[in-house]
């Protein structure tokens, strides 16, 4: 009791400051999340959950099924999880690697003294200001195999029109390109901030030692960027893993399903026909566990105590 009071006296400022956030997050995120966790142990679907239809209350009739749903998913019995997981990982790694690589490249170039820097910076960051569903629609129009502007442009130089959005491989490449387009501005801004904080003396010292630009990039720039990089890579991974809009909106409904990532697959479970809440939640929890595992592993290796 005594200790509790002392603790309160010492920390009430801090608790008061984080209090509003804790309440909002607990009510609107953690509570539904725990409810989702509960659903994942049941066979709940739209036909058997409780309903309030006007004055009529219909009680729930679903049952606890233990780990049945998880077994269905993880044993591969549902036939979808592992194919979706493999593609989700390819998609995430592909998107994050390209976004980060291009981001570093452009940030380094933008960090040099150059005429028209403001113009380049505005242009490169512009996609960030466009709501992402609109950006995706723009790409869908441009990649149209019959009427898209890309085929018109390459047609001008005599290359026959390509089917950008047909077939599994083409579709997968297309969704990654679009997601990279959406993601690069954030990376550029973040990494530019990181670059500007590298003391110029480091580069000067490197030059005095006769290091080539590439050597200086590898031995000075990249290591100095590490704290920024590890943060943006972690966030990029989490966001990309759950990036829903790009795949859903770019490819539309007529796909083979092989371009679905775990999240879009889970979405279909909940939004097509009679909703399957239990499996949808199970997929959600599995995604959470995968990302949590990754973050802990990655956090141990990359993030300093300072940042978390």
């Amino acid at each position, binding site marked *: 009791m005594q200790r509790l009071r002392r603790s309160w006296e010492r920390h009430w400022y801090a608790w008061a400051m984080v209090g509003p956030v804790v309440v909002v997050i607990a009510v609107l995120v953690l509570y539904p999340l725990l409810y989702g966790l509960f659903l994942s142990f049941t066979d709940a679907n*739209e036909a058997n959950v409780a*309903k*309030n*239809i006007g004055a009529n209350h219909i009680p729930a*009739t679903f049952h606890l099924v233990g780990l049945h749903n998880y077994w269905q998913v993880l044993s591969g019995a549902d036939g979808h999880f592992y194919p979706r997981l493999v593609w989700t990982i390819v998609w995430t790694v592909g998107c994050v690697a390209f976004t980060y690589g291009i981001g570093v490249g452009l940030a380094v170039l933008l960090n040099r003294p150059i005429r028209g820097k403001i113009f380049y910076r505005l242009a490169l960051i512009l996609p960030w200001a466009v709501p992402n569903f609109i950006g995706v629609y723009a790409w869908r129009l441009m990649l149209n195999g019959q009427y898209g502007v890309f085929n018109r442009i390459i047609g001008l130089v005599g290359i026959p029109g390509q089917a950008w959005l047909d077939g599994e491989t083409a579709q997968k490449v297309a969704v990654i390109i679009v997601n990279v387009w959406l993601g690069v501005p954030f990376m550029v801004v973040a990494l530019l901030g990181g670059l500007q904080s590298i003391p110029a003396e480091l580069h000067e010292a490197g030059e005095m030692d006769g290091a080539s630009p590439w050597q200086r990039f590898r031995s000075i720039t990249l290591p100095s960027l590490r704290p920024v990089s590890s943060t943006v890579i972690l966030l990029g991974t989490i966001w990309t893993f759950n990036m829903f809009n790009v795949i859903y909106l770019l490819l539309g409904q*007529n*796909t*083979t399903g092989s371009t679905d990532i775990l999240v879009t697959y889970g979405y279909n479970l909940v939004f*097509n026909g009679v*909703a399957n809440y239990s499996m949808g939640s199970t997929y959600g929890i599995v995604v959470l566990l995968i990302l949590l595992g990754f973050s802990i592993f990655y956090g141990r290796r990359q993030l300093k105590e300072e940042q978390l």
Partner: protein
Amino acid sequence: MRRALIAAATLSALALTATACGSSGSGAGSTAAKNPGQVSGTITYWDTSDAKNEAPAYKALIKQFEAKYPKIKVQYQNVAFASVEAKFKSAAQSGKGAPDVVRTDVGLISEYASLGYAQKLDGTAALSDKGDFAPGAWGTTQYKGATYGIPQVTDTLGLLYNKALFKKAGIAKPPTTWDAFIADAKQLKARAGVDGTYLNPDPYFMLPFLFGEGADLADPAKKQITVNSPAAVKAATTAKKVADEASAKIDFANSYNNMQAMFKTGKVGMVIQGPWSTADDYSGSAFTDKANLGIAPVPAGSTGKGQAPTGGHDLVVYAGSKHLDASYLFTKFMTSSASEAFIAEKNGTLPGRTSAYTPTVLKQPSIAGFQAVLPTARARVALPQVGSLFTPLGQDYTKILQGQESPQAGLDHSAAEFKKLLPSDFTIAK
């Protein structure tokens, strides 16, 4: 099995409570039937029509309704067609924020009915002169022998063709079988220099192929999954043949838009399409003369009978509505012969009532053309899960059309997926 039992139990519980409740009364002896002028209240109506081109006509009708029933106020809300299902289901389930009447795609009726969201309309004021509805449209409203919606607009798929291109290719009349369809497509390519068709890879557009072979997704009466029956495999094989031999290259992500763009500018000779698309066709360079657009029934498969699914929109009354009487009256008004004729005149859609095909309405060539096609329409299989079935079917259909899977393998896979989605007492027919 257990799941089916639970569903049945829920349903009967629902039926009990539904008849017991009704704050403003329900059933034939209620105010709505006896003394409609006394019914009062404010009801919410969710419309899903195109906000720019179609909604004004519906708003005008609502004005008329409010003039006729001054004690009833209607709150009109336009909800995007793409999001209405999810939105309505969330609201209907929680009892808050749901509309009293919602315009519903006919494919959703059995789902809403089975989940208890839709009010049973037999014997209420909402349903009048039911013999007047086109049989296909009426069929969409039925679930387990009861009525859960009133047809407002109906449609089906037909064969739309470009008469000038047909003439140029020397084709006298539209094909009536898929074989003739493919032959004509080749002739169009050879003599008119255009692609025969643009196959829409959406699974909904696969239904004419299935129906033409006498196949369907499932047989609810026998509790069988029939999507991989020999007849269905034959249908998918035909579809694949059409894609390979008769169609322009399909852009799967943009198929609908590209199909329309090519057809209305005279770059393909024929498409399988619904009446909703004709307004767009007439805006294209190929159909500035409306008479150039030919409308025929969909081609037939080996059964010799071309059939297409019934589409369109029914009005559904929310089972939890606090103003059932007013909702019934509103539904009745919006689906009266005069109202449906009014909508048809303004929007060019097909009325659900046969008496609404007045001479003025039939002056529109697309309505006249599709009226002749309507007898080939039939309702989709009335299963609550039908919406979920289209997801795996669409994916396998895409694989079949892209040549990644044979028709047999693809449909076998669909059947296995259906098995997971349907009640456990369904078996795969062999």
